[in-house]
């Protein structure tokens, strides 16, 4: 995790807080002024998790309407529970239907509950709704002005997350081959691999969502370059998974001790290469050089020819593994070339020229 990778995010949150608290301070004569702070802070969290400002904007208005209604119903002791039941039921159904937008129905229900037991006269109820609208405007307008190019930053941040998850996945898969404890702790190792795959799927879905948003604002040839990066990332994942099949095919794990040094060398080199890819994803670097990795694979191949082919029970699986490693090399080189092409696009050049 790079804490300082997105300084604009921190500046945005800081500005939302400052404006919300300052405006609330000047409106301190009104007992409902705290709703402005709540709505601006909570809606700002929604703007961070969605791709545009439209959804948080609409959520703010829905919240204002729901709070107004519940303010009217708060005076009726037995209607209120029915209303809260309906709101909670609908919001939870929406949460489960659209799990990615979990925070939106959650916020609506939260505000409705908070407003439900505060019995205020109609004028203050109206003030409450207006403050919620004002808070929504603070959060969404600030995001539009300050983070209008956030999506490019978000795009490369997501790309970095994807590459990090692929790097960790590779390391965890190769750990199954390097550590003899794998045989007795299959669940523990597989759980780690599952966790890395989960992170990859989450990151690549986020990347797809943001690139879909960015693609609407760029030319056709630029869109194709961006799409190519996504395809190469998916391909790289498939190849890594293909390499990982060796761990399920070997019946005698002591065989790995015969090639532990070569496997260790490949693992270390893959870590270096992924670090280079991550650096390449946000700096205008040259393409990643896979020559060293090819050398390590060659050494493994020599070990296979001289040792494993004779000593392994099923040498074919190691040959298939070597083929997958060579494919991994090519996939990394292809991805690096795609990333280089992206960095050359005019629209991202200013982002890269830091």
């Amino acid at each position, binding site marked *: 995790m790079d804490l300082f990778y997105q300084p604009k995010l921190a500046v945005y*949150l800081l500005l939302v807080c400052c404006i919300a608290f300052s405006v609330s301070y000047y409106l301190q004569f009104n007992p409902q002024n705290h709703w402005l702070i709540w709505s601006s802070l909570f809606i700002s969290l929604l703007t961070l998790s969605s791709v545009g400002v439209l959804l948080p904007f609409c959520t703010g208005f829905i919240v204002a309407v729901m709070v107004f209604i519940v303010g009217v119903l708060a005076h009726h002791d037995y209607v209120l529970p029915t209303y809260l039941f309906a709101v909670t039921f609908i919001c939870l159904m929406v949460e489960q239907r659209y*799990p990615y937008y979990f925070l939106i129905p959650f916020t609506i229900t939260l505000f409705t*509950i908070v407003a*439900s037991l505060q019995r205020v006269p109609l004028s203050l109820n109206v003030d409450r709704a207006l403050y919620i609208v004002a808070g929504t405007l603070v959060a969404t307008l600030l995001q539009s002005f300050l983070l209008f190019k956030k999506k490019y930053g978000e795009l490369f941040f997501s790309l970095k997350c994807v590459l990090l998850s692929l790097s960790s996945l590779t390391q965890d898969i190769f750990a199954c081959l390097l550590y003899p404890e794998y045989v007795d702790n299959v669940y523990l190792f597989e759980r780690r691999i599952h966790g890395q795959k989960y992170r990859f799927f989450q990151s*690549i879905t986020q990347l797809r969502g943001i690139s879909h948003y960015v693609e609407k604002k760029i030319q056709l040839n630029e869109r194709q370059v961006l799409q190519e990066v996504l395809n190469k990332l998916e391909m790289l994942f*498939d190849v890594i998974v293909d390499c990982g099949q060796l761990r399920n095919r070997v019946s005698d794990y002591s065989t790995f001790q015969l090639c532990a040094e070569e496997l260790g060398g490949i693992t270390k080199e893959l870590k270096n290469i992924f670090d280079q890819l991550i650096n390449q994803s946000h700096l205008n670097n040259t393409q990643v050089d896979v020559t060293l990795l090819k050398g390590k694979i060659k050494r493994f191949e020599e070990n296979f020819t001289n040792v494993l082919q004779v000593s392994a029970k099923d040498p*074919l699986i190691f040959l*298939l593994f070597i083929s997958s490693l060579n494919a991994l090399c090519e996939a990394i080189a292809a991805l690096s070339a795609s990333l280089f092409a992206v960095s050359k696009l005019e629209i991202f050049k200013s982002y890269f020229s830091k």
Partner: protein
Amino acid sequence: MVHVTSLTTHHMRQALSAGLTVAVASLVSIYFVYSYDYWIILSCFFVIQTTRGTPLKQSFNTLLVIIMALLFSSLLIYIHEFALVAGILTVIFVFVSYLLYSSRPVSFTVFYSGIVFLFVTLLGTLEPIQPPYFVHTRIADAVIGGVIGILCMALTYVQPAKAFKQDLIPLLKLLSAYPQALTNNFLEHKNEKECIETKLAIERVLQCDNSTYPEWAYEVGFNPSLRSGFRFFLITIERIIELCFSMNYLASLKINLFTHPNQHTKILAEGIFHAMHKNQELIAILLHYFVHNKLRQFASDFTSDISTLENALRQVVPHRIELLDIESDYMTVTAFVRDIKDMRRLLLELIMALP
């Protein structure tokens, strides 16, 4: 781009249960509230949002987070300087939000705990206080709400075995048509779009940890008597999915071996087609079991086709493995056949393990 889950009876049940719990909490808060505020209902609402693996443990953890946040906000209430309070809240809000959003992706429980802490601190600190103010009244209300939430959740608790079966069905449905699409793509370079769409759909299912995949079986503290069986099943299913992704990659290489087939390659193609069809049949048997809770009778032989396939492969590729990499297509088709064999082994292991 947004993943949309199809709603099941479990989702309906959970939403209904949550709605009723909040309604009960609101009725209780009318008559038994200590702080004359919304903490009973709010605490109840926070506590019922759990995953299915360890709901009680998560509820207690959430209640603990709420109490901690209330204690912290109580400290801030005693600071009468608005600017100082605003400054502290700003620092907490910016720090926690930045941490949560910069560390993406994070697990649902971590994200949820962070959000609950933030929300309760902000609500607790800025809410106008009716004097006299006592921190223990808010905490008492939060505990009452938490207990109501936990009790209602215990009453509407879904049996893990039933929930596990229901949650695996979407994934098995996606897998049921995938082998055939992969085979067509590999042999005839057809159905490429279908393969990509199915792959993306599987990826989406695997990342929804509360809705469409029983990720909750991996949670620490899950029922020990069910844990090993569920986890074995999930690990095996994931290995099958990995094999599908591996085959997807091999299909994308677009080999030319079957473009102008001779007699041997035709037999090999038929062998691949037939073997994958049997794999698809096994997935259908699994799906039938999870949907109808009954193992379907099957008469098919699931071993001889693999032997036939291996013989057909030996007629096409060199016998000596050091000659396999002469032609890249030989390596690719050997890898594909190996994946088919591994898939068969895993599917048979799963079916043998069914109760």
